[in-house]
């Protein structure tokens, strides 16, 4: 089988979904890496639930580190023209009030119907909900980025989630290290496969039946 995409490449694929003018919220982990890969010529505004709209890329050097400028993942980021700050209550008015165009979250499990579970790994209680529930309910579009399978190669895309849900029927699209899948009313549609992967190989690692459209593409990176 072909190689799986690494975390940075998944983030790069996620960033292709950023359209000009979008307000985007990125969750902790792989999602925040996508802030480094905004496609050229597109202007997007990143919202962070800890009270910032319009922050820039992740800080790279000691000089860039500012303890008053971090993203929701606790990483240092750099400022940007047009950036503004606000408190947590205001920040979640933006999120819960439906003002975020696209949210990207990590995932532990996604179901066929678009249910998401991403806050509690059994055995590692109590887990951490953070802002994920609010984002899953509030964002206009929700993209989940995660590895396609667990460390033991078990599917994470399932008929039903077995972990506690973050929100039911909230996921619109899943980007994994081997595929891009869209959640539709008819079921899960395989839109893209990673270079070297066949639809059959992706299906073998996915519990629900995937719809394979005639225009299935290889991920362009």
């Amino acid at each position: 089988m072909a190689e799986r995409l690494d975390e940075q490449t998944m983030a790069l694929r996620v960033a292709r979904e950023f359209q000009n003018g979008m307000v985007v919220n990125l969750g902790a982990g792989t999602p925040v890496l996508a802030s480094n890969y905004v496609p050229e010529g597109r202007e997007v505004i990143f919202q962070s639930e800890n009270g910032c709209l319009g922050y820039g890329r992740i800080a790279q050097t000691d000089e860039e580190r500012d303890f008053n400028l971090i993203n929701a993942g606790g990483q240092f980021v750099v400022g940007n023209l047009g950036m503004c700050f606000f408190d947590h209550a205001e920040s979640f008015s933006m999120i819960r009030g439906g003002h975020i165009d696209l949210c990207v979250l990590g995932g532990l499990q996604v179901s066929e119907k678009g249910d998401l579970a991403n806050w509690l790994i059994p055995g590692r209680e109590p887990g951490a909900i953070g802002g994920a529930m609010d984002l899953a309910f509030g964002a206009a579009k929700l993209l989940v980025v995660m590895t396609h399978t667990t460390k033991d190669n078990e599917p994470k895309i399932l008929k039903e989630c077995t972990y506690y849900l973050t929100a039911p029927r909230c996921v619109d699209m899943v980007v994994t290290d081997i595929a891009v899948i869209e959640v539709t009313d008819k079921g899960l549609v395989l839109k893209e496969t990673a270079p070297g992967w066949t639809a059959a190989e992706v299906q073998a690692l996915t519990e629900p039946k995937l719809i394979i459209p005639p225009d299935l593409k290889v991920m362009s990176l």
Partner: protein
Amino acid sequence: MINKLYDSFDKAVADVFDGAVILIGGFGPADGCPSYLIRALQRKGAKNLTLVGNGVGQGRRPAPPPGAPVRPGPPMNIRRPPNYDDSGLLVQNGQVSKAICAFPGHSQLGNLSPFHQGLADGKITLEMVPQGTLAERIRAAKAGIPAFYTRTGAGTIIAKGKETRMFDGKEYVLEHAIKADFALVRAHFADRWGNLVYQGTSRNFNGAMAGAAKVTIAEVDEMVELGKLNPEGIATASIYVNRLCSRKDSREGP
């Protein structure tokens, strides 16, 4: 003359009682944690506290054994602002019996933090709340709203045992305001009336919590003359602040 400034952090928290519900501002490694007030509260020693905040803090790491080699990481690995303590200090000191927070953290098997150990031993109880619901429950208290309906949590374990109601074909969950006794917040500048200005993402829960408890105590870096803060730029209006302490001018200052 109105002057809310206390010359000592210890005096500012002197009336914090056993069993008090305390809002504590801050988020992650941002320099927006009322560290001096937390230390004063540790010295005060009030017990059975309910902490309300994004997380429960990390507390202090045990000092390395004498003679252990010093292994400094790369500079970008420095994850905490200078002169920092968080609410984990109160957990370590056995002062906390309950936490209401969004981010208690995943437990590390075989290496439980003081908070997770407290949960395991049944000495601490946890009410986990989605972060936006937490912020809104705090804001509701500030605004005199006893409860509100929200989409967040509908159809999940968070809604278990809670009243729900349909609006426009969607299910909403009833959530209640958090009634708190004290709010400990951190800001950058204050004037003697209690107007506050923050720095960047260090505003976070601090701005939401100021005014949401019976008594709000603000820890600031520095006091400025009344009139020096731009009225258009004041983030927290003085009405929400009862007491002020300045890191620069207090007895326990740097």
